[in-house]
């Protein structure tokens, strides 16, 4: 019963967002971005609801959701650490920072900590090439990292 009411609530929220975009199919990406923001990821249920409301097949929604790296189809940590893997950051010492983050969090890139707090990912260029290595934690930018500094920053979010 409890699950059902939660699902009803989510279904309602999906309708509200889809309505905001006038049920337009071409707004699918914006709709998914908003839902991804509010739930942290796009569950199968959410994707099915979106498909239903836009009169699309679920596969079509899924194909869009999996194409873009900022949309998640699996639950992610509360804080997503995205370390820039661009060559300028590599030249500035990205690999040592990556190792420090792996050690600190006990997970590899692409994984989420068991307490659901952190996800560790690589990202493409975040435009901080002259200040590398750089990373994003959710929407905050950190740069000129070294292994120690990166660990200190992550500790602040613990």
């Amino acid at each position, binding site marked *: 019963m409890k699950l059902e009411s939660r699902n009803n609530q989510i279904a309602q929220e999906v309708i509200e967002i889809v309505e905001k975009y006038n049920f*337009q*199919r*071409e*707004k*699918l*990406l*914006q709709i*998914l*971005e908003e839902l991804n923001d509010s739930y942290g990821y796009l569950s199968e249920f959410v994707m099915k609801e979106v498909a239903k409301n836009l009169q699309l097949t679920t596969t079509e929604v899924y*194909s*869009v959701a999996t*194409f*873009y*790296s*900022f*949309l998640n189809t699996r639950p992610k940590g509360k804080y997503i650490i995205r370390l820039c893997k*661009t*060559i*300028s950051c*590599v*030249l500035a010492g990205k690999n040592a920072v990556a190792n420090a983050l792996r050690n600190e969090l006990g997970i590899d890139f692409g994984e989420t900590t068991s307490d659901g707090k952190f996800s560790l990912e690589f*990202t*493409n*260029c*975040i*435009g*901080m*090439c*002259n*200040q*590398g290595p750089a990373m*994003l934690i959710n*929407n*905050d*930018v*950190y*740069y000129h990292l070294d292994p120690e500094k990166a660990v200190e920053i992550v500790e602040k979010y613990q």
Partner: protein
Amino acid sequence: MKQALNNMFDDIYKPLDEPCAGKIVICTGTGCVASGSLKVLQAFTEEIRKAGFDVAQTLPEAKESTRPDSTVRLSKSGCQGFCQMGPLVTVLPENILYTKVKPEDVAEIVTETLLNKRVIERLLYKDPVTKEPCQGQNEIVFYKRQSRFVLKMCGELDPESIDEYIERGGYDAAKKAYSDMTPEQICKMILESGLRGRGGGGFPTGRKWELTRIQPGDKKYVICNGDEGDPGAFMDRSVMEGNPHSVIEGIMIAARAVGADEAYIYVRMEYPLAVKRLRKAVEAAESKGVLGKNVLGSGRQLICHVMEGAGAFVCGEETALISSIEGKRGMPSPKPPFPAQKGLNGKPTVINNVETLATIPLIVNLGVEKFRKIGNEKSPGTKTFALSGHVANTGLIEVPLGITLREIIYDIGGGVTDKHGTITNDGFKIVQIGGPSGGCLTEQHLELSLDFDSLREIGAMIGSGGLVLMNKNTCMVSVAHYFMQFTQNESCGKCVLCREGTKQMLYLLEDIMNGQATAQTLELLEQLARVVQKGSLCGLGKTAPNPVLSTLRYFRDEYEAHVFGKRCPAGQCKALLVPEIDPEKCKGCTLCARKCPVEAITGERGKPHTIDPEKCIKCGACAAACKFLAVTGV
């Protein structure tokens, strides 16, 4: 050149009329914000008030001030390009530039500089070579040799204030386009100006517009491509963050020229600040009647949307970007039909890069003749470049097209650095230009004129303008591998040759780096590179092999050393290194032996140690611990 450019600029953009006792400009580009410039701004507000002055945060506040002599104008600005020295604070009218300012320094700046007109030497930038302190931008080599034109207002204006942009003469070009010029005239003007797309290909912008203009139909679109994904490129980010209104003005003129009534600005999600500032700018423009149902009172409509991408590099390709705006997977489609004929929602669409659009208002204001005086004959105008990697001064620069690589690296960039950041005289190896689609420029290209055509002749391209400099200790195979990995990851999967071909090329490169390559590997790699170039649909696949081919062309010996000699000349490919301790340098402190997790290091205290290559796992712990840099090959 620079002076002429400044004069031209001053002819069209007036200075702000602010009756204040002084002005402090704090850079709030992403770089400076991340190093704490907002805290510095807060500290300034408090300290200035403490000193008995009023603070005017906005232009109207400054104008309405009842006691202008006791008011200090405190302004934010967009990225000034010299992010490595941030937060940057400029004190006007003296034009003193303070670098790496911390909130603790603010009280001193207020009392010393603002009140007593004294310069605080310790906060000035010091020339890395002469060690002399430099007072303002005019004295700093990094700025002195640049010609800031498109970026000029980025470091001066408050990017979140439409009032400042308008007061300086912003949107005058749009007014001219909407009231005094016909679409044909605008297209002709841009064509004659010789402006070429700043996003990569260098296609004449005027021709693109004309092609869209002559299409029948009343529904047309303008798209601003802000999906700047090239590794090592951040010019568009700075323009969107630092002067969003110039981008909007460019879009308006494009819309007028082709007859569009709807526009999209597509920005990467990796640039949160740019998205925020653009949204704010569009809202402000709508409320001022600059955008909306009645653009500048002309009776024409222009609705402008800001849309976020979601982390797919291939969306920078125009047809893929259109698919993405339509809410589909961002996959490219074959051309023709070109977007000019059949673009967004099947309607004629013009897509331009951010920097191209930001240049448009300058051309309309200046006129063709004056604009063509900048740059060279075939490539007029300026170009912004993002300088990063092993170079003393990194950051965002703007130079006239046709400048030589030497000027950029050694004058503006201050020279090549080694891995400790020290300037070396003979360290230069390559500059990777244009990201994964570009190629490398070597010592023999130092005198080459940087413009669209001369780069194309040698098989490289300006691309979006990322310049990643690498020193002698960089392994070219690893660099090619890096870019291959990038394009392989970002391939959308539509074409077999791009999807599978890049993967196989990556495996071949890995074989070379791991010492498993044979004489056939290089041959196969080159063959495959040509096939991928020919058999892919869009720019991503067509240009994916470029980094491999261009490093092979100039550094074949380095590839051969990997393949036949099983060694990496730059000492970077781990699998090919033999761990060693230099007996000359080793002092026998035993630190490395204690750090080694697999007990591969042996030796007596006070005597040179040795590593057993069989046991060593090349974790690098010993090299990191050694104070005498005696350990190599791990």
